């Protein structure tokens, strides 16, 4: 058995840092794998943001408003102009890695704002942020961004970062960009302190690997949206393909009691997203097998998800989202709700 002593000795120093290095002292494999994932980089500081560094002068014209995001040293500045009017504000954080899009957050007049324009990877350019499509800015500040009410700011930034939200409020000074261990595992500080004190009972954290499909969908859905959250908004149609737990739980094969259909059946929460579609086949055949007397596909034996989880092109998103509502998708059929 590996000794925990070196890690325990390191903990007092590492725990003082507000990132996840304290966790890595014991859980090195998970921590190092996780650091390379897009989730760990769900938010970046402006100084370290590659997209902003590599695109030092982004511009976008929307009606009479002209938006520019310009690099100045380690900062990036949003400037919106209309005629003689100008609004300038530095970006605070970049949310998202740009695979689908990257949206920016800034502070103005004591409130947090979500930028009205986002960077989209496919055209490598700015366009209107997906949530703002169909709206028209009434003022130059609105053309720069949408004011987030404090609970919305806490929920929005809280999902892309860790350590910054307590009591449903965002505390900018303690935000650590990116999803971290505590985002899913909860009270890691209490755990670390208990480990340090040798208190095994108090060190116990919920074992997330034991969660069933429903609880897992609830956990992942806290950021990726749960079935209930989406259902209560009344949202339907292709727009919901962005919300994977909702779509998955709408699948005909979803079973609240069968762990073979939970989120982590296909996705390693500490690892990179698998892009080789064939690698998911074994997840499908875990159920759909003649050995198990279950339905099997009459068309193909491999690359199941390429047909049964089609990519949906969401208008304005410049990105095709994998539809997690597993189904027999027929050509020409509209995206189901």
């Amino acid at each position: 058995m590996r000794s925990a002593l070196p890690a325990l000795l390191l903990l007092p120093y590492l725990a003082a840092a507000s990132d996840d290095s304290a966790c890595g002292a014991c859980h090195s494999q998970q921590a190092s794998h996780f650091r390379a994932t897009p989730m760990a980089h769900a938010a970046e500081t402006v100084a370290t943001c590659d997209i902003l560094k590599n695109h030092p002068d982004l511009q976008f014209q929307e009606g009479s408003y002209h938006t520019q995001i310009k690099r100045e040293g380690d900062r990036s500045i949003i400037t919106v102009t209309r005629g003689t009017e100008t609004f300038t504000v530095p970006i605070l954080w970049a949310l998202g890695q740009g695979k689908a899009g990257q949206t920016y957050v800034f502070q103005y007049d004591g409130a947090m704002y979500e930028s009205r324009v986002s960077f989209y990877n496919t055209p490598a350019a700015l366009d209107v942020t997906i949530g703002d499509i169909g709206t028209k800015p009434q003022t130059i500040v609105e053309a720069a961004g949408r004011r987030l009410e404090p609970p919305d700011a806490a929920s929005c930034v809280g999902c892309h970062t860790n350590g910054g939200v307590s009591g449903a409020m965002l505390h900018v000074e303690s935000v650590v960009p990116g999803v971290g261990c505590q985002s899913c595992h909860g009270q890691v500080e209490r755990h670390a302190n208990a480990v340090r004190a040798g208190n095994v009972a108090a060190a116990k954290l919920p074992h997330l690997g034991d969660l069933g499909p429903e609880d897992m969908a609830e956990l992942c859905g806290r950021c990726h949206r749960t079935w209930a959250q989406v259902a209560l908004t009344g949202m339907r149609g292709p727009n919901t393909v962005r919300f994977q737990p909702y779509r998955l739980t709408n699948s005909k094969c979803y079973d609240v009691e069968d762990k073979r259909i939970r989120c982590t059946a296909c996705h390693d929460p500490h690892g990179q997203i698998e892009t080789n579609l064939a690698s998911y086949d074994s997840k499908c055949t875990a159920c759909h097998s003649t050995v198990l007397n279950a339905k099997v596909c009459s068309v193909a034996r491999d690359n199941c998800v390429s047909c049964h989880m089609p990519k949906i092109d969401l208008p304005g998103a410049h990105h095709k989202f994998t539809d997690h509502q597993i189904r027999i998708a027929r050509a020409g059929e509209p995206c189901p709700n």
Partner: protein
Amino acid sequence: MRVSGRALARFAGLVLSIAGTAWCQEASEADTVLRHAIQLHQSGDIAAAISEYRHYLDHVPDNVMARSNLGAALAHAGHFEEAIVEYRKALEMQPGNLPVRLNLALAYYKASDISQAVAELERVLEQGRDRQPVLLLADCYLRLGENKKVIDLLSPLQQATPDDKTMDYLLGTALIRDGQAAPGQLLVDRILRDGDSAEGRLLMGESRLLASDFAGALEEFKKSLAINPQLPGVNGYYGVALAHAGDVPGAEASFRKELASNPNDYSANFQLGKLLKVDENYSESRRCFQRALGLRPHDPAARYQLALLDLEDGQAEQARAKLESLIRENPRNVEAHVSLATVYYRLKRKSDGNQQRAIVLQLNAEKQAAVSGGMAR
């Protein structure tokens, strides 16, 4: 407007004076006891007065006025449940005694049994539409969230009494809460016409809150508080605006301040319950929702929150019963269907859970079709 202790005392005084003239003429020993009780009552020695009234009533149990006076003294001392018993006994002997029935309604009101207060006030108003019971009934309706009943009750009277600011305030509140912003605003303007007032600012704030202008609402509530920090409801609404502004500790403090002076405020109880639920303080949250439900006994929102607390506490069967009851009353209650699906899954009733989810999807589809249809027309 809320009915104050002074109003209660005025009614008690009215009854006392009647009792005084009616009973001081007798020279018996019992009358001496009664006279003494009344003197004690009028001098403010309520505990001694209660004792003397009881002593008198042991010998003369069918004296309606003495029993009513005892009720008034008990209510004055805050023993509303006992006061209700005495008023009820008095009314058994004289069902048509309107002052006693009004006092009974006031005791129910003070005891937070608003529904019973309404029942008694409606009986009082069958005999005539005096201003005081009308306004008290309107206030009760407001507390029960029955805004339309307030509008129906006060609208015909308000035109005849255009300078009655209390009536304007009650009617304005009901109109704004009913979503009738324009006529509500007219009444607010009338209240503010003769100078700034806490009531006017409170109404302006409520109006802005309904329009999701949270920053504007916050400013109005601040002004209202600056004028009259004791105005019933103002701390509760200020708390709502603070919560929207992200100041959760401030909101909690504000709700608690409201409840310290006005424990029967439905909104403050309900909103504090929600904050405490987020904080995972489930036991205190439950108490708040139960108080809110006590104030509005059939309130679906409070019942729904209690069902969610049952779910959090692992009491899935209790949650199921509450949610099923909500759905029986309103089969289109999407929130209840959503939560009932979760409850069924916890109870290992998979097909029932799936059925609930299918209902939600169907309801959402119907809602979307109705919106699209409306837009097409």
